[in-house]
């Protein structure tokens, strides 16, 4: 597997305090990483640093190894952030995912609209393309924001708690779609629900001030303790409990 990009001893934070300290990791192409960790541990901050929205205080994000560009990153912020009463249609929102390749005076022509229609179709939103956001259910809204994140055909997809406001019944469908997308892009997904996502992700990163990379999708309480990752491991239903060999 080849490296898509690396994070080289990044320290980042806000005016008052440092959130991430000396973070180093390499992200492999086509990985599907679940980012877990306690609240305030720096999960969202990590995404912001990768996106270039927050400049690290020291260290750097190095895109050269995989020749990644900033405009090849798709981003799905926490769903609560958009104003769903704002008068905008599903198609318009999805089109905004293609603004990365355009300047401030960018127009959306036939090519972009066709591309948007493809993504809308792929995510099962076609009948809703010209609906306003306030007419959508939580699950539909979630797919609209996912469509926006992937309409620019990104090589890296960053998702921040994508399932927060969605019923459990929608969740499986959503992760199934991510699995398909994972065939053509690397995915990093922040989640608080380790139990559910462990069925879908390929590896875990625990972020708690610094990061610990766990290269398997099965993670145990013992692992979390070892990483200093104070998260309760929850398993749903009849998930077989897997005990992994100790890392050396």
């Amino acid at each position, binding site marked *: 597997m080849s490296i898509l990009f690396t994070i080289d001893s990044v320290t980042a934070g806000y005016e008052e305090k440092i959130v991430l300290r000396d973070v180093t990791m390499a992200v492999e192409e086509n990985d599907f990483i679940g980012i877990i960790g306690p609240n305030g541990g720096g999960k969202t901050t990590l995404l912001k640093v990768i996106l270039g929205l927050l400049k690290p205080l020291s260290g750097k994000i190095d895109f050269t190894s995989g020749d990644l560009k900033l405009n090849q*990153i798709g981003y799905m912020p926490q769903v609560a952030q*958009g104003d769903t009463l704002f*008068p*905008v249609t599903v198609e318009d929102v999805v089109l905004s995912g293609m*603004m990365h390749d*355009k300047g401030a*005076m960018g127009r959306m022509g036939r090519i972009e609209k066709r591309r948007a229609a493809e993504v809308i179709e792929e995510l099962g939103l076609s009948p809703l393309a010209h609906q306003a956001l306030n007419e959508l259910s939580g699950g539909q809204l979630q797919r609209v924001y996912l469509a926006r994140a992937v309409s620019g055909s990104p090589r890296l997809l960053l998702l921040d708690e994508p399932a927060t406001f969605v019923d459990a019944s929608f969740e499986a469908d959503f992760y199934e779609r991510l699995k398909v997308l994972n065939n053509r892009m690397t995915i990093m997904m922040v989640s608080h629900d380790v139990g559910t996502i462990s069925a879908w992700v390929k590896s875990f990163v625990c972020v708690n001030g610094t990061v610990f990379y766990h290269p398997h999708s099965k993670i145990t309480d013992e692992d979390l303790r070892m990483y200093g990752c104070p998260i309760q491991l929850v398993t749903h239903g009849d998930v077989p409990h897997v005990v992994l060999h100790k890392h050396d």
Partner: protein
Amino acid sequence: MENLFEYTFVVRSLLGALFASITAGLAGTYIVSKRLVFLSGGVTHASFGGIGLGYYLGINPVVGAAVFGLGSALGMEYMSARGKMREDSAIGILWALGMAVGIIFIYLTPGYAPNLMSYLFGSILTVTDGDLIALGIIAAVLIIYNAMFYRTLLYISFDENYARTFTRHVDLFRYISVGLTGLAIVLNIRMAGVIMILALLTIPANIVMLFTRRYLRIIVLSTVVSFAGISAGFAISWFTNLPTGATIVAVLVLFWLVARAIRSLQKSSNMKKLRKDNR
């Protein structure tokens, strides 16, 4: 001679109505969809301080209003962007302060302030060529600005955090938008008045949003609705001698009530159809 006077008056009124409608369509849609109605009210009333100062200094009160309007709009945007205030409280304070400053200066100005009522309630009779030209320029600037940066402005308004991932100029665009909106509001004061201007800018977009949620359509259709409302208001106030601003607001609110009635009829007939189809 009287015919000529009437002719120029009608042309002037129609031009004023056109320019005001364009500002209502563009700035109004922005204000309503971004939920800046209360902030706009603050800007309008703050600009009354500028009107008073203009009287006191003997300069064009509209210039004073423009300076106060622009300053308060940018100031509030700056403070709310830095999260340094409870926004509604600050707007409320600015609102009252502007009116207070205006009244104090007018009180201090010797003699009678002749057109004061027209600033509060609006009057097409007092609109000068300079006012019309200024309104025309701001309308043209708003059209060019929105046409050039349509997508960027739409997406910054909708989801600023996401917009930051594709443009570094989110803050710059926000200040320009708010500044232009502040100016558009203030330059409408002569015609619609401090007290009425808010209705002129917000009712048309609200009417159109009952029927469509497409941003561009809202801009175009609320311009049309404003033009109809303002022209009708002018005509009525011309024939009945009622204050122009108040008449326009009354007409627009009437439009709004009719639109609501049509909308609820539409909804109930849709429901009937659904029930029939499901039987």
